[in-house]
């Protein structure tokens, strides 16, 4: 990278800019670097700890062509190439399957400890209603991000930690960089690049609360407030899955963490207040079925007064399974699980684990074509597929594609000083303002709105009210005041939350059906077969344009 100073701050030039250093960003940086391009990866956090993966990871999904059935690229495609998500066979084959094994081996070589059997084969188990055994177990999951971070640093990749991107730059309708500022020092940076990869994740928390009413005590990375969707949308790229990627999980009561897959697939029984095992009513695979069904099922029981409390009962599960789960896998997935369990006397083998329905995540991503390029030329997106493996592999492919594009380009786009100056003024506005509201007040109120109207049961009228109120709140954003840089960062995140909430409401109002996501729409209680497609939103002068299916844009 080349660095220089100007009146607008620091100017950095590189070939491929990767925004976000989570799993998908690391994948993208490695994929681009392997093509011989200069790569800069930026994150508002620090490479070693940023993103969901920084919280831990206990399973890596890998199809390895080792088992006699359900272990090939076609099985992946059959399971995941659904009209709804817009993932094509090419994307899945080239962008996920092709990188699964090499990246698994890379992680292993770098120090991630995967379970192995006597023949030195990866031990894998089944989950998520998938047909094959696709999940490798990880013993030291709490340090996986550090391991991956080290790999990235060892690869001649420039790393820009602590810098929050606030705008993707374009030139003539093509991406050519981004601007951001260092959340510790306030340094303002402009990064010029031939191509840009958005790897900012798909999951955005802080839109709703769980029972603890602490928006940071949650399942997914709470410092990601969907800037990926927001920045992509603002730059003119079509965004998608806002209506369908609304997710929740069951949580150990009071403790925001992942791990319910492990608990479900251990053979745990979910019990309601009457001690009845009820999931059979909602999914033929009972607790080990589709996550949305577990949430809907539990929610229905709760509405009917059959709970709370709800429990996961593992007392009947074989000791070695429960032991691995409580003492290796759960702490690997969230490294404070053991401390929390000790503090609360949690004991899977001997006591029932009380659980609750966790917060609802409003996520989504930037829509891409088979080459992981978005509808904004030269902007690629790596946060497409699910899970660690999906993020890492999809990211890798997006980086690879972005680098191949960059390799064929003679020069990078021009940057526009006026729009950079405007972005800079906007970015620091709350710091200088005489504003009278805090980010907590604004963001907390947005959560109140979403909790109230955008829960697991919704109506069109309720969503209209929600939209009105979220727009009202967005209009108050000019009153935000930040006392320091940290608050400034949170102010920006609060605005992201408002933006993604608005897009989520708008998209959900378009999807006039129920059953494709975790919520039910009272006005449209049935599935609409015509809506088995992704919905794309693109910014226009008067609100979003809607596109059903990827075809017209991608």
């Amino acid at each position, binding site marked *: 990278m080349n660095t220089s100073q100007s009146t607008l701050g620091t100017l950095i030039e590189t070939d491929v800019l990767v925004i976000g250093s989570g799993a998908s960003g690391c994948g993208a940086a490695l994929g681009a670097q392997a093509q011989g391009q200069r790569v800069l990866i930026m994150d508002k*956090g*620090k490479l*070693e*700890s*940023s*993103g969901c993966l*920084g*919280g*831990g990871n206990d399973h890596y999904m890998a199809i390895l062509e080792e088992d006699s059935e359900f272990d090939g690229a076609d099985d992946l495609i059959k399971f995941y190439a659904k009209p709804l998500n817009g993932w094509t066979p090419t994307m899945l084959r080239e962008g996920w399957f092709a990188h699964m094994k090499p990246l698994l081996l890379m992680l292993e070589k770098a120090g991630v400890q995967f379970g192995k059997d006597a023949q030195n084969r990866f031990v894998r188990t089944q989950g998520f209603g998938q047909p094959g055994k696709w999940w490798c177990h990880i013993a030291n999951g*709490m*340090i996986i*991000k*550090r391991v991956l971070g*080290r790999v990235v640093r060892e690869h001649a990749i420039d790393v820009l930690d602590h810098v929050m991107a606030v705008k993707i730059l374009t030139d003539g309708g093509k991406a050519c960089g981004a601007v951001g500022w260092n*959340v510790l020092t306030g340094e303002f940076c402009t990064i010029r690049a031939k191509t840009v990869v958005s790897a900012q994740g798909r999951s955005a928390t802080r839109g709703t609360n769980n029972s*603890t*009413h*602490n928006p*940071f*005590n*949650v399942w997914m*990375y*709470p*410092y990601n407030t969907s800037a990926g969707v927001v920045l992509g949308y603002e730059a003119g790229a079509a965004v998608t899955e806002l209506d369908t990627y609304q997710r929740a999980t069951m949580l150990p*009561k*009071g*403790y*925001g963490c992942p791990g319910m897959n492990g608990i479900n697939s251990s053979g745990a029984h979910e019990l309601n207040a009457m001690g009845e095992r009820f999931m059979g009513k909602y999914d033929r695979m009972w607790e080990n079925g589709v996550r949305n069904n577990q949430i809907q099922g539990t929610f229905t029981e709760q509405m009917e007064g059959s709970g709370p409390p709800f429990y996961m009962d593992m007392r009947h599960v074989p000791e070695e399974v429960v032991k691995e789960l409580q003492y290796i896998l759960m702490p690997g997935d*969230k*490294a*404070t699980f053991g*401390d*929390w369990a000790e*503090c*609360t006397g949690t004991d899977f083998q001997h006591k029932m684990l009380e659980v609750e329905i966790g917060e609802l995540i409003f996520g989504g991503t930037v829509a891409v074509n088979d080459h992981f390029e978005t509808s904004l030329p030269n902007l690629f997106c790596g946060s497409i597929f699910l899970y660690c493996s999906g993020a890492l592999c999809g990211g890798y492919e997006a980086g690879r594609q972005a680098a191949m594009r960059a390799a064929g380009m003679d020069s990078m786009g021009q940057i526009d000083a006026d729009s950079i100056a405007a972005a800079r003024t906007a970015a620091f506005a709350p710091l200088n303002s005489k504003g009278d509201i805090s980010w907590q007040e604004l963001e907390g109120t947005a959560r109140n709105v979403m909790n109230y109207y955008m829960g697991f049961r919704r109506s069109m009228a309720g969503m209209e009210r929600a939209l009105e109120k979220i727009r009202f709140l967005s209009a108050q954003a000019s009153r935000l005041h930040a006392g320091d840089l*940290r608050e400034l*960062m949170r102010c920006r995140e609060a605005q992201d939350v408002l933006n993604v909430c608005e897009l989520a409401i708008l998209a959900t109002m378009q999807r006039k059906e129920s059953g494709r996501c975790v919520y039910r729409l009272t006005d449209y209680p049935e599935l609409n077969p015509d809506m088995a497609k992704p919905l794309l939103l693109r910014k226009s002068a008067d609100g979003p344009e809607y596109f059903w299916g990827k075809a017209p844009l991608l």
Partner: protein
Amino acid sequence: MPPKYSREITRPIVLGESLQEQFRTSPCEIACPAGNPIQKMTTLVEQGKFAEALRYLYAKNPFPGMTGRTCPHFCQSACNRAKKDGCVRTRELERAAVDFGGSIAPFTRRQATGKHVSIIGGGPAGLSSAYFLALLGHDVTVYEAAPLLGGMPRHAVPAFRLPRDIVDREVGRVLACGVHARVNTAVGRDISFAAVREASDAVIIATGAPLEKTMDVAGAEYALKGVDILHRAAMGERPALGKRVVVIGGGGTACDCASTARRLGADEVSIFYRREEKDMPAPLEDTEQARAEGVHIHACRVVTAVHAEQGVVTGLTYHDVRDCRKDAEGRMTCAIVPGSEQFYACDSVIFAVGMETDLAFLHNAAPQCTRRGWIVTDAAQAASIEGLFAAGDVASGPASITQAIGQGRRAAFGVHAFLTGEKARVYVIDDDNSIAACDEMAADTPPHVVEYEEIYGVTHYADCAPHEQAVSYALSLEESRAGYTREQAMAEAARCFHCGHCKQCGTCVDDCPGYVLGMRGAAGQERPQVIHGEECWHCANCRTSCPCGAIAFTFPLFMQV
């Protein structure tokens, strides 16, 4: 809200094993019987602050010059860094603190309490008790049978391992605290135990294990006794041992005897030990040194007779043995290999086969003892008779100087509590340089001992082999181990992981994705603090980044219901 930091101490601790602020600690500190503040020491030595390191050591241990040379280093044997590239040489660092610390003003004695304490035995245990009791304001008299204070370190440990000016200087520091000593005064011979008790408000027995065991073999009366030989050598005699010498035993005393015999002119010195070499209780360095000096070590051999003509030893008979094991009573039994009998010609045979207590001076006033004759005590070193305490080898069996110091210190506080009713769980050196009670620093539960696997941030440390001090095998009577240079000491101290104690490096602050933490405090002393706990994801990146394993977690009430 998480995390919670286990901190390094900020003032010298004199007593207190469980501290609120230090709820995690290292295996080395737990292993040190004297309770040395090892990590505080490595921190200060790394910074070149030898004098301050020494001051912290003196708060727990009046004899760091002795233990820094002769301790079998329980700390190093437990060191987590051994799992990476070799343990931190903490014992050498302790010595370096003394070597380069200069002279430190003694701690200030507390106001006189008017209580009188008698201590029987002027070895490390007795003198340690005396030191702390004097600092606590009591009037202390030490009764010592020998003409000189110091116990075994004075009378038996060879000078090439422990130069006597070190002993003089450290014993002198104890006396400088106002301790009275009556040397050449054996209790039971020169003054009765009853008279001593009568004259005191409390008595500590610290008479060590002065009796040497012998062996039940023909001709045993012709054998020399190891500690006796060492004692004579230490007092400047040069006992004639001849050219071929056999030492029987496998402990540190046996090695000392063998190395001393070489220095006294013996050409061919052998150690006969009944178990396998790996079972020898002697510290590895001592056997290595003996071997480097030409001593032969023969394992799995027992002596079955000592032969002499006209009172002069001519040799011994030995057998090979196998399957040595301890029986239920703790006695060693070995199977003699049939037909393995051999004669071995030599000029002297030295028994170095163990020590026993001598409690005859107590007559019928003895407190409860174990079957093997050690005085039974509680955690405060109180014996079964009120007002009577015991510390060191007499209470624990032959152990170590460090153990004697730790027990001596505990006995002092046991006596202090008994005499004054002040029973704080923690005592510190206060700003006025004297000992102060500080119960509010105490924790109810002992600290968690951090294992290597719990130090996720261990990747921060580049490989670095331990620094080795220069060692001479020149059979000289001068000290054979040179100790570290200043620079070596500082570099070695930098190898310490600081297991369980925050070293204020700021990595966790840097690595927290939620910007929850901050470095706060006076310039140059910033330490990590939870600033925005309500925004913590409890992802434990702080913990997994920490190169010390210093972080634990607490959870707010809303996460517990």
